């Protein structure tokens, strides 16, 4: 069925609305003028200044440490959780419990974790951000791997057991390889989510260990500079690559 002309107006408006701001940032990152609102000419001068900015580089290093750790831990915990839920539970209770952190407002989790860390007198730093990010990243991995599990043929595992492989061997040699695309997609998603996460990191890190979003937040709060445009464009590029990668591996949209 073709859509009438009238409803195509909001449809196109949505895309203009979604992409206009991104387009402006990307275009202005190549502006040779320091003025953010007047196009003067093409230049790549703002890109090297990003790499010379110490706050950005410290933030980037911290964020990469956090995101990589979160990716590994969340993939491991989320995959185990998903297999456990798929095999051993029938009711939706455990599943709901495991996926809930993905839907929980970040602010609530943030104040909760801050209270817990403070009660246990845990010194805040990158480790506390990693723990905090793992909780919700794991929920996304669980959801994606569960979706993958649902589409698998259980007779392969049964055949492996019938042919004499033990439970552990069946899991390693039959189940795990089939889950790999879901795990990689979940891991990429966990990485991207952690890379971009601001609110929870803001509450659970120490002032001495800012993540990149926190560094960007302070930069934006104290005024806009062309440097931010260049940084933003590079981050957009990385996010787009990660999303396309995850999308190709499994249909992330279906899993959620």
């Amino acid at each position, binding site marked *: 069925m073709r859509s009438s002309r009238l409803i195509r107006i909001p449809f196109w408006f949505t895309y203009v609305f979604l992409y206009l701001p991104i387009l402006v940032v990307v275009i202005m990152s190549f502006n040779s003028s320091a003025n953010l609102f007047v196009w003067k000419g093409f230049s790549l001068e703002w890109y090297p200044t990003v790499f010379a900015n110490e706050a950005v580089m410290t933030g980037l290093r911290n964020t990469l440490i956090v995101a990589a750790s979160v990716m590994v831990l969340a993939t491991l915990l989320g995959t185990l959780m998903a297999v456990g839920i798929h095999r051993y539970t029938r009711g939706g*209770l455990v599943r709901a419990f495991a996926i809930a952190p993905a839907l929980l407002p970040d602010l609530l989790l943030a104040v909760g974790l801050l209270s817990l860390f403070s009660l246990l007198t845990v010194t805040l730093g990158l480790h506390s951000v990693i723990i905090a990010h793992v909780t919700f990243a794991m929920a996304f991995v669980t959801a994606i791997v569960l979706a993958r599990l649902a589409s698998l043929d259980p007779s392969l595992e049964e055949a492996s057991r019938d042919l004499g492989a033990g439970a552990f061997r069946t899991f390693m040699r039959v189940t795990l390889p089939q889950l790999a695309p879901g795990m990689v997609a979940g891991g990429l998603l966990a990485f991207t989510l952690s890379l971009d996460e601001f609110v929870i990191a803001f509450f659970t890190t120490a002032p001495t260990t800012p993540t990149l979003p926190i560094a960007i937040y302070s930069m934006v709060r104290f005024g806009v500079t062309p440097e931010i445009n260049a940084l933003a464009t590079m981050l957009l590029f990385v996010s787009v690559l990660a999303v396309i990668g995850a999308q190709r591996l499994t249909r992330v*949209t279906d899993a959620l």
Partner: protein
Amino acid sequence: MATQSPTPGVVPRGARRGWAALPFLTPGTLVLALFVAVPLLLVTSYAFFERGRFGGVVYTFTLDNFVRLADPLYLNVIATSIGTALIVTVLAVALGYPTALVIVRLPPKWRTIALIAVLLPFWTNFLIRTYAWILLLNNAGWINQGLQAVGIIDEPLKMLYTQPAVIIGLLYMYLPLMVLPLYSSLSSQDAQLTEAATNLGSNPFRVFRTITLPLSVPGLLTGCVFVFVPAMSNFVIPELLGGGKTVLIGNLIRDQFLKARDWPFGAALALVLTILLIALIFAQQSASRRVIEGPRERKVKRDA
């Protein structure tokens, strides 16, 4: 069987082969219990304690934190938050519904592209996306330049640091969360229903009103919750685009925890937010159940 689990205890209900489940379910469950369930319970309990003289929490039971909430100042913040999130949700429906409807009717190849295109901004850094609106809404920004160039306005419009700027920023942030559930709800509809109605002589508007719209209500309600919930607790957009003039409940909670160091009052605010959100999700669930089951029965009766 690989059952060398050292920590017995957490056997889920409905377990088929009890012990074998432990190595899979225990690690994740422990993490979720310690770092999600305990923190939420902890904050909830703080709402009923007194604040220490130099910050922190004194473990004496009190309801003062809730009494303070009745102050018109704070009631006003809660009302503004609900109002702002409501406007954002309505606008998201106005844009998201037609968008999802058009996407569903695109040829399959374009459908995937259109869907990914809606999703992409959502996975890009949220501070960067908010920052982009500073460039657009500024007095010397791109929208004002454009409007002045066309001659619609002479003087730049003051847009940045106003409540509409906050609404635009929130809408921009959460619009994809409206399109997605709507799309999945619309795309799973049985095309034969609309075809049958058209063949039997219904005009497109009537087909939409009596078939497409009612069947998409669950997706619509899910989208509304997906937009309303984060819009209500966001504190960064009100600060960056609203210039701190629009104070929402998220800003208040942040300030109590990080600036005023009044954790019990912040916890009470967080509890109010949680209760509002839980009530909303329950309302959504029961409404979508009623929509799926209710009207169909009535329609059958009327037709019979």
